[in-house]
């Protein structure tokens, strides 16, 4: 069976696996933003926490993905559903770029701008959402882009624990020793990663602060 005939005969399944893949990655990314951006902000405020937080996120990233899925399997509630488990694992992998870029984006804001803002009587909160986050937005988006592209690739491995997604076709193709089936999973995943890269890259540019002359 060649690639095109496999795709045309299984387009519904491929579409639904693609949607599943996208869902897992999107939820994992949203959770990583919700956890990672505040952590990144926190370590700009509490310098003592910076090293430990980054170190932990770093260590998580070095755990091989299959091992991480395995570690999380016994976790209550999470382990019951492969989808939940995959989302948690991808979220954990995404934390590092999220935390690091949020920190770098805020730390990179010109000191004179921060001092001017403080001197004008902005509260900590106003400083954060009116000045620091908008000026760090494009760097934070770069972190999101990196996390999403990595997650789309990693999510294929989550099929090994039955989480679904395009990895299912890849693993099926491997057992069947059928390249057409492998490609039917790999190509949509690659296209998804490419599109995410371009789309978020475009957002990054839109949110880049007007350059100081």
């Amino acid at each position: 069976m060649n690639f095109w005939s496999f795709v045309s005969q299984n387009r519904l399944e491929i579409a639904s696996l693609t949607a599943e893949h996208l869902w897992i990655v999107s939820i994992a990314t949203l959770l990583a933003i919700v956890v990672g951006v505040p952590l990144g902000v926190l370590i700009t405020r509490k310098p003592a926490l910076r090293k430990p937080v980054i170190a932990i996120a770093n260590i998580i990233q070095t755990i091989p993905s299959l091992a991480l899925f395995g570690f999380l399997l016994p976790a209550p509630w999470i382990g019951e559903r492969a989808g939940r488990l995959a989302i948690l694992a991808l979220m954990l992998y995404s934390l590092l770029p999220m935390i690091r870029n949020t920190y770098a984006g805020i730390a990179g804001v010109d000191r004179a701008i921060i001092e001017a803002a403080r001197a004008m009587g902005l509260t900590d909160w106003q400083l954060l959402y009116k000045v620091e986050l908008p000026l760090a937005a494009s760097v934070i988006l770069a972190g999101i882009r990196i996390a999403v592209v990595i997650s789309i690739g990693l999510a294929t491995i989550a099929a090994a624990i039955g989480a679904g997604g395009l990895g299912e076709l890849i693993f099926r193709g491997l057992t069947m020793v059928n390249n057409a089936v492998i490609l039917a999973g790999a190509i949509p995943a690659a296209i998804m990663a490419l599109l995410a890269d371009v789309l978020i890259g475009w957002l990054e540019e839109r949110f880049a602060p007007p350059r100081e002359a």
Partner: protein
Amino acid sequence: MADSAQAAVQFCDVSYNLAKGREILYRLNLAAFSGEILVLLGRSGSGKTTALKLVNRLREQSSGEVLVDGRSTRTWNLIQLRRHIGYAIQEVGLFPHFTIARNIGLVPELENWAKEKIAARVEELLKLVGLSSDISSRYPHQLSGGQRQRVGVARALAADPPILLMDEPFGALDPLTRSDLQREFLLLQQKLQKIIIFVTHDLHEALLLGSQIALLEDGKLVSCSTPEEFVRSQDPLVRKYVEAFAGTDVRKRGRA
């Protein structure tokens, strides 16, 4: 608002040390009143910027008191204290993601002024600092250095604070633009009658603008006097500073 006899910024025996124990300011005593420009003069590293930042509590002194309108800055609500004080710096620090109008109108916006009132105030301030109101929809990077400095001053004046702190606000400008701004600034102060503390290392600027000149050296106050007294002073450190600028006629004051 405090009565005018009280409207003042005073340094009472103020010292500032770094955590490692290094002394940056040593037992400073100074006062500035409405309608005055108190100039802090001194070479770079003498502690001028640090002294200025003690007033709006961007730094906190290690001992002594800074009084604003007769009250220790430590007893002021920090946000209220800062809204009471305008701050303009050499780096300007305009928000690159805000238009000029939004930059100038930010403090009024935070103080919940009505939109029309903010717009009118922005217009008024642009005129006051000699800018055309067409630039209000532009972004800081689209302005020249001189225009940005003017916007910085306008922003500091936005909510009409009685006190203005200025840290070498004209330092980065070419001599011609600088002298224009200095002249306009003097006229502005005659109109506004604020309490102004103005930091510079430039003797000419100090003589032109200051009603009092406080010379700092190594975190210590060397002398505080009127410009006339300053150029005649026999204090060796003052002489040294004045002579460093010799060759250029320091006695010629551009003041009416």
